[in-house]
């Protein structure tokens, strides 16, 4: 059994910080060492404990994708993950996409294409797009639709999001060198 299971408060007791579960993971490349309630979701810990409010919550049941983060490089709904489950993992949120002041290709493309309306779904879309383009570096619009089906934009601004992901792909360096050129 993991040492995490020791010294936990029984459920319902007044858990003070000392009694909470230790949790260590890498967040956007930096080590985080904190304590959480065992039933806190990763989304709750990111937003309320670590104050990284870029990641949004909306449906809280895995339908909308607004809470998408990368867990060891894989996009997942942070609202469905109990925080202790990511002990030792590498988490990337929207705050981790830019390199200092330099925006990532996906972020730039969203701005250039006007792919942001109210903006609430944007952080999840950006993470989903980054991950999608790693598996499908030169997508057609139809492939973007399918690959990003786990994210909803209730402003219904999908066309410009699709444009932005296709544009971001063109701007990203081709793994084989040079730029993409799809006939």
């Amino acid at each position: 059994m993991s040492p995490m299971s020791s010294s936990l408060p029984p459920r319902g007791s007044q858990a003070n910080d000392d009694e909470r579960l230790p949790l260590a993971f890498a967040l956007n490349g930096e080590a985080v060492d904190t304590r959480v309630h065992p039933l806190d979701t990763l989304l709750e810990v990111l937003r309320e404990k670590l104050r990284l409010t870029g990641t949004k919550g909306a449906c809280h049941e895995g339908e909308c994708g607004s809470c998408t983060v990368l867990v060891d490089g894989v996009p997942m709904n942070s609202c469905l993950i109990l925080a202790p489950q990511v002990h030792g993992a590498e988490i990337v949120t929207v705050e981790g996409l830019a390199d200092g002041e330099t925006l990532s290709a996906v972020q730039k493309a969203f701005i250039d294409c006007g792919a942001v309306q109210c903006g609430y779904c944007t952080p999840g879309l950006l993470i989903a797009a980054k991950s999608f383009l790693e598996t499908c570096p030169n997508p057609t619009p139809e492939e973007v639709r399918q690959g990003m089906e786990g994210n909803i934009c209730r402003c219904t601004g999908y066309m410009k999001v699709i444009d932005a992901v296709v544009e971001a792909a063109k701007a990203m360096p081709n793994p084989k060198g040079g730029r993409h050129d799809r006939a």
Partner: protein
Amino acid sequence: MFYQPKTVEEALELKARLGTAARFLAGGTDLVVMMKKGRLTLEDVVDLSRLSELSGTRDEGETLYVGALCPHRTLESWPIQVLASAARQVGGPQIRNRGTVGGNVGTASPAGDVSVALLALDASVELISLRGTRMLPLREFFLGVGKTAIAVDELIAGFRFRRPSRSAFYKNGKRNSVAISVVCAGVSLDTDGYPAIALGSVASTPLRLLKTEAFLRERGLDPETALEAGRLASEEVRPITDHRASAEYRRAVAGVAVTRLLTQLMPGGAHVAHV
């Protein structure tokens, strides 16, 4: 309490000790939702995310084995069409990366796409506890909505099925993505050409259509019997009317789905026009 066992044996010891107050947590795509929406109060959570020994798949020659903690994502690229197609249509990519095959079956939703696919493969579920291991045919595992034949100290370890000669899956949802099935259906043909047929969202559990299968066993599979099998399937299902669809609609779709899948699986069937 939150427990994170490092071995299967530790997990089984914990469950045996904690009993019904504890639930196993795998991908959490159902369990965490129920907890957070207040539909389930848990005393203890036994997190299975460290048990990598249960997440793999094995080619055993004539049979295939899928570990309970295998995420849907892994099955999407499998050559077993009914399973790959079902896995591709579960939730969105984020859910498929997280949700597990064992969780899909253990949740015992009548609409579980992967559950229906495994049922259509005539799979058996491997249940383990400190008392030992047992293989149970999946069609005996589902007892009702959210109810299964699992004992309180047991854990779903994985699923085993014979490699089919051909198989296919059909899903009817309210939209193309991230939709709960209004009706879903899976069909596999074994190496002798005998079909196993399973449907979802047409009864209180994923349902094997044994009567329809018996008809096809006796009469063989051809365009005419595929049509008749669809009619039998419409009669054999036991759907209800709910906010997603009426019982009448589900009966009709069930029949069309069965005929369409059987037609698709006939030799040269890919060229047969859609019913």
